[in-house]
């Protein structure tokens, strides 16, 4: 067999075999293999992309969180300050009110005392007047007989007797 001369039988067998192998491999091997390689590549790419996206989102959320935290801190401080102010206000007001109240109470007590005293004085005056009259009557009954001059003198005494 010549080394450089292609033999007819070999060509025939080779052609038929190669075509059959090619068709079988194309349908049952290359198609599923290439397809699954492609889908796997794509899924890996997608996974990487989504991981990247998630990381970015996480970063954003973290940044947001920090902002929210800072805001919350500010809010808290504000609330605390307000509360402190309010407390002071309340205390101050209470103090003021207490002072006012105590003043009022004192005033009214003073007023009542004054009225009481007046009433007492008035009563005492009346009683003194009555007593004086009675005393005067007794004295006059004993020493003097009813006379206008004596009555005038008594009146004058009473009038001069100013207790208040």
């Amino acid at each position, binding site marked *: *067999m010549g080394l450089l001369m292609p*033999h007819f039988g*070999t*060509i*025939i067998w080779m052609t038929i075999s190669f075509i059959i192998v090619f068709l079988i491999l194309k349908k049952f091997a290359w*198609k599923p*293999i290439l397809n699954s390689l492609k889908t796997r590549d794509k899924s890996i790419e997608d996974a990487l992309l989504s991981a990247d996206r998630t990381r970015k989102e996480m970063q954003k959320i973290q940044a947001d969180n920090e902002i929210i935290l800072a805001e919350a801190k500010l809010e808290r401080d504000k609330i605390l300050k307000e509360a402190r102010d309010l407390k002071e206000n309340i205390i101050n007001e209470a103090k003021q009110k207490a002072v006012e109240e105590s003043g009022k109470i004192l005033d009214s007590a003073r007023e009542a005392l004054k009225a009481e005293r007046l009433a007492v004085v008035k009563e005492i005056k009346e009683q003194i007047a009555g007593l004086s009259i009675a005393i005067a009557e007794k004295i006059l009954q004993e020493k003097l007989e009813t006379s206008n001059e004596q009555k005038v003198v008594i009146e004058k005494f009473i009038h001069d007797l100013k207790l208040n």
Partner: protein
Amino acid sequence: MIEGKVIKLVLAIFALYLSQNTLGSDTTGNLPVAVQHNAHAENHSADGHGKFEAGKFMFEHIEDAYEWHILSWKDNHISVPLPVILYSREKGLNIFMSSKLKHGHAEYKGFFISHEPPHENRIVERLGNGEIVAPLDVSVTKNIASLFVGIIIILTIFLSVAKAYNQRPLQAPRGLQSWVEPMIIFVRDEIARPSIGEKKFEKFMPYLLTVFFFIWINNMLGLVPIPPGGANLTGNIAVTMVLALFTFILTTIHGTKVYWGHIFNTPGVPWWLKIPIPLMPFVELIGVFTKPFVLMVRLFANITAGHIIAMGFLSLIFLFGQMNQLFGYGVSVISVFFLIFMTFLELLVAFIQAYVFTFLSAVYFGMAVEEHH
């Protein structure tokens, strides 16, 4: 990336060197001398045996045969007979086992193996009138049997791998998949995609993958020294011719207007090279045919050269052993060492040649489907 490019460059230079080397040595004398030697050896063996003929030894291995020779011990030949399928005009279809021919020493139904040109080592037929003609011969020879073995291996590997992909979608490769997948991705991303282009490479992937693995696995099968390996299938010119022919047909079928325009009206060339004598179109048209021709010769020459070298080292042992038995034992050590070295080199060549054939096919497809730029 840079490392990969350097490796690729080294491989490419290496492949070029090998192909140059083997082509050169084949055409400049080795081959004719060896063939002459072979014919000479046949004459010798007819009248007596015992003398070791290196050329005969080598070419018996490299060439195709009707039986698969395993072992010879003195005059006993152990070989696997293969079916012979012949169609003769006189006797019609004849199918019989090659053992009927007694290793080329017997005639069966008028069929025998010729020992003379023009049908040397081929089955010829003695017609009724004494005329000797070659019948239509589609026998399952050693190479065809090796082809079937290779096909069984290829189908087993890739069908099971495909099954694995179907059963475990979107998961990391395992077992055979891990060996096959980098190769498939290599063919896809390093050969097809850059040579053909992003848009059209998918159409050619099945062919490129089939060719790549077909050549590679059969190359490696040829390196296995014991049957069912060891046949010189990818170093058979008919086999490489069929492969190159498929590349040629696919290139021609898929040729775009731009491709044919490039051939018949090459742009950027002075008009006087096209009219009145169509010099450039002629040169370009020759190029269309030389491309597959070169594919055919390169694969054939590289693989055959590898087998010749391996057989050469083995022959050395027996040649020296003929002079002096002790000398033969001494040389065997060196020979075996070189044989091992060559086998590793051939393992590399097996891959490189599969790569080069696939890569050049992809480049030709890329030229054929090129669009205007």
